[in-house]
């Protein structure tokens, strides 16, 4: 369609020695001219990709939709069958059922739900994949997610006191966050938070901290909480009453299987999401640094505030392509199945403009996250002020 812009972009505008790059802190990293060129190259990549969207992408998301449904059916049947099979085989069948159901919930929440809710497939005009109305198999409501994630987290990525995902008001993972003696126990909170992650996300927008500072009444919280409570009740009734009853005598194995499946999904999504923004080299930003931010600066902040996971195709699908966190933050509404193709181009652009492209294996990236959680449970202070760039490791 309109990919003519893409072809007129400078393809090899590599900065020379006296080049546009002046390393004077993150906002001044690129001279205005280079910054604009960088922004144009990012936008050209987007235009090229969007012009090519079509049947392949529609087929992909329909297949993911089918995979979610089939793994759910198979997982739930195995949980019941496991009860009737005697001995070790019964246990193995039950465990396989729990893992399959967990897999179904992971696919539903990440590759299907997260991506569809971003509006990535709005162009299909298919009501099943409409970002405005999609609802998912998790305690949090899609409406809350659209606000805390699509709007706040994606617009104000890694900006202190604006991006609620920075520690989720539970963990101190950057030295710029205020230390409190309670943080000493945060490695423990982190484990509980990971196990109950869907509930943490569900209540994120209620900002219960407001109760402690008397800024809001219980009555007000109760009013705001009513959609979340309705959704939570629905989820609890579904997984812990309706399906166990359908299991008849196998009700207990169905119930525990559902609990395990939800737990698997919780720990996995926690891990993936924390790898996306809390590795060693990611930068965070102060509220004042994004005043008068231009579009190219916004792109730059998205890259500097995100980190990727390298790995197999299976890893990419299971993370909902959040393994391509950088690409997702540059292009949150481009279908996620395209990120793998866009990644080498983004990486090349970053290389040419001297921007750090943060990627690594899941083991390495998550170790860095764990280190942050442990390190900043103790008092720490930023190495330099935020405007100067890289925070303390």
């Amino acid at each position: 369609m309109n990919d003519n812009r893409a072809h007129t972009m400078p393809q090899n505008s590599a900065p020379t020695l006296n080049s546009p790059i002046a390393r004077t802190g993150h906002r001044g990293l690129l001279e205005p001219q280079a910054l604009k060129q960088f922004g144009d190259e990012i936008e050209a990549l987007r235009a090229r990709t969007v012009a090519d969207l079509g049947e392949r992408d529609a087929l992909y998301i329909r297949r993911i939709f089918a995979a979610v449904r089939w793994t759910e059916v198979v997982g739930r049947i195995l949980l019941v069958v496991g009860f009737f099979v005697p001995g070790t085989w019964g246990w193995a069948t039950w465990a396989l059922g729990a893992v399959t159901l967990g897999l179904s919930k992971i696919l539903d929440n990440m590759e299907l739900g997260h991506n569809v809710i971003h509006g990535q497939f709005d162009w299909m005009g298919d009501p099943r994949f409409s970002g405005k109305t999609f609802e998912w198999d998790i305690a949090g409501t899609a409406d809350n997610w659209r606000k805390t994630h699509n709007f706040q987290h994606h617009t104000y990525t890694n900006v202190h006191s604006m991006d609620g995902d920075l520690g989720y008001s539970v963990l101190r993972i950057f030295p710029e966050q205020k230390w409190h003696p309670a943080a000493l126990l945060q490695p423990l909170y982190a484990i509980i938070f990971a196990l109950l992650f869907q509930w943490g996300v569900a209540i994120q927008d209620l900002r219960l901290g407001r109760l402690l500072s008397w800024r809001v009444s219980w009555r007000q919280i109760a009013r705001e909480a009513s959609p979340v409570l309705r959704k939570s009740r629905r989820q609890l009734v579904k997984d812990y009453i309706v399906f166990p009853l359908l299991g008849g005598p196998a009700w207990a194995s169905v119930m525990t299987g559902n609990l395990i499946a939800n737990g698997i999904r919780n720990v996995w999504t926690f891990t993936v999401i924390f790898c996306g923004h809390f590795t060693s080299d990611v930068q965070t930003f102060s509220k004042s640094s994004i005043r008068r931010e231009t579009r190219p600066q916004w792109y730059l902040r998205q890259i500097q505030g995100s980190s990727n996971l390298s790995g197999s195709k299976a890893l990419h699908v299971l993370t909902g392509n959040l393994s391509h966190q950088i690409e997702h933050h540059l292009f949150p509404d481009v279908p996620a199945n395209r990120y793998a193709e866009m990644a080498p181009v983004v990486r090349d652009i970053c290389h040419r403009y001297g921007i750090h492209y943060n990627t690594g294996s899941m083991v390495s990236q998550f170790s860095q996250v764990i280190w942050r959680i442990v390190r900043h449970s103790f008092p720490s202070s930023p190495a330099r002020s935020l405007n100067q760039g890289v925070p303390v490791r």
Partner: protein
Amino acid sequence: MPTDLTLIYWAKTRAELCFVQELRDLAKRYSKLRLHFVLTHEAAQSPDEDEGFIGHDVLTRLCQQSKENADGQAAWADSQVLACGPAGFVEAARDLIATKALSFRAEGFTPSTSVVTPDESVAPADAPTVHVELTRTGRTLALSCGTSLLEALEAHGLNPPSGCRMGVCHTCVCQRHSGTTLDTQTGERSTEPDMAVRLCVSRACTDLSLDL
């Protein structure tokens, strides 16, 4: 299938073709259906593919394959022809086919000529206005084409849901039932009915009907 049918499907590249397998299955099932994919920016490879823009030669070749008796007449002389595509394509098809075919009907995708061209040099206050119908509230407003739809609606005291105001978060997305809007980020216009529009990065080009 009671009668002969030839489907000629043009696209730039093979990757842009939709429902290829479904169409091939249909062609296999119905001997009276003849299927041709024509690519303008790639070379033909399989027997049901051809290459090049629409023209007398390619049409004659593809239509004659489907007719045993080509006796000097245009190959499509006794055919009813339906054409669908961008305005340029439809016009080319009309010039080639309309006078000789039994009938010719066409549908073009390009927006009507009454479209307002948003001009960056014009101050928002001087920009033309269009009528925007809000179907949920039943109101009709005269909105400026010089600002985003979100700002124009807000200028009228409305408060539609919005978030990032930069086209990222999709909070302000709403259905456009009819009319043409301009995506200010890509410079692309869109006329397709009942599609999702991001109000914060779209401007009105014609009278609109929005699900607000």
